[in-house]
C-alpha cells in the first residue's frame, strides 16, 4: 500500500507544479515552440527549474543501494538510439505542436472539466493503444 500512497503524493506535487507554472495552458507551450513569433520563455524556465533539482536529486538517490520502500530501482534498460525512439519522438512533437498539450499537462488539465481536454486525453489513450498493437 506504500507505493500507491507515494505515487499519489508525487502526483499531487507534480500536478501542482505543472499548474502553478502554467504548463497546463497550451497557449504558453505553443508560445515556447513559436520561435518565429512572440517567443514565450516560460517552458524553458520550468525545464531549467525541474532539471536543476532533478539532476542533483537523482545523482544522490541513484547512489543508494535501493529505494526506501521497494527493493529495486525500475529504470529504462535500453541504451541504443533506435528507429522507434527517433520516429516516435518526431511524431510526438508534431502532435505537441498541433495542440500544445503533452501527456502530463493534458491529464492535469482534466481538473478544469473541459470537454475539449477530455477529447484530447481520449484520443491520446487511443493513440497509445494503437502504438502498443503496432509494436507487437
Amino acid at each position: 500500500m506504500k507505493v500507491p500512497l507515494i505515487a499519489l503524493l508525487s502526483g499531487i506535487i507534480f500536478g501542482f507544479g505543472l499548474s502553478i507554472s502554467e504548463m497546463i495552458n497550451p497557449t504558453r507551450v505553443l508560445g515556447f515552440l513559436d520561435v518565429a513569433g512572440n517567443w514565450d520563455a516560460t517552458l524553458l524556465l520550468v525545464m531549467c527549474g525541474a532539471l536543476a533539482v532533478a539532476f542533483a536529486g537523482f545523482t544522490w538517490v541513484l547512489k543508494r543501494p535501493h529505494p526506501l520502500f521497494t527493493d529495486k530501482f525500475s529504470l529504462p534498460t535500453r541504451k541504443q538510439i533506435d528507429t522507434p525512439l527517433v520516429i516516435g519522438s518526431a511524431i510526438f512533437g508534431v502532435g505537441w505542436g498541433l495542440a500544445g498539450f503533452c501527456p502530463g499537462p493534458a491529464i492535469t488539465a482534466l481538473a478544469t472539466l473541459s470537454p475539449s481536454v477530455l477529447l484530447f486525453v481520449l484520443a491520446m489513450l487511443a493513440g497509445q493503444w494503437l502504438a502498443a498493437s503496432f509494436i507487437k
Partner: protein
Amino acid sequence: MMPEVNVVNALSGGALIGVASILLLALAGRIAGISGILGGLVTGSIAGDRLWRLAFLVGLVIGAVICSLVVGPLRVQLQAEGWQLLLAGLLVGFGTRLGSGCTSGHGVCGIARLSPRSITATLIFISTGMVTVYLVRHISL
C-alpha cells in the same frame, strides 16, 4: 512584443516537478514519466502494477485543484479544436508510446540521468514541435 512571464512561478513550478520526480524515485524506485505511467495502465498486464499508476494520475488532477484553490483559477486556453485536437491527441499517444517517453520521462527524468536516448528524444520532439507550430502559424496550412 514578448509575452509576460512569471519567472518565480515558472522556476518554482519546475522545481516542484523535480521534487515530485525525486520522491517517486527515492521512495518507490519509479520514473515519473507520465506517458509511461499511463501506458502501463492502458495496456499493462502485470497484476498489482496498476494502482500506483492510477494514484499518480489522480494526484496530478488533485494538484491542479489545490493550485486553483490556493493560487488562483486555472487557465487552459486551447488553440486547436475539433479534428485538429483529435489528431494531436492520437499523435501524442502514438508517438510517446513508440518513442518510450514524453516531456516528463525523457525531458526531465531522462536528461537528469544524462541518458543519451532521452537527450536525443527531447531534441527531436522539441524540433518537430517547433516546425509544426511554424507551419501552422506562419505558413498557415
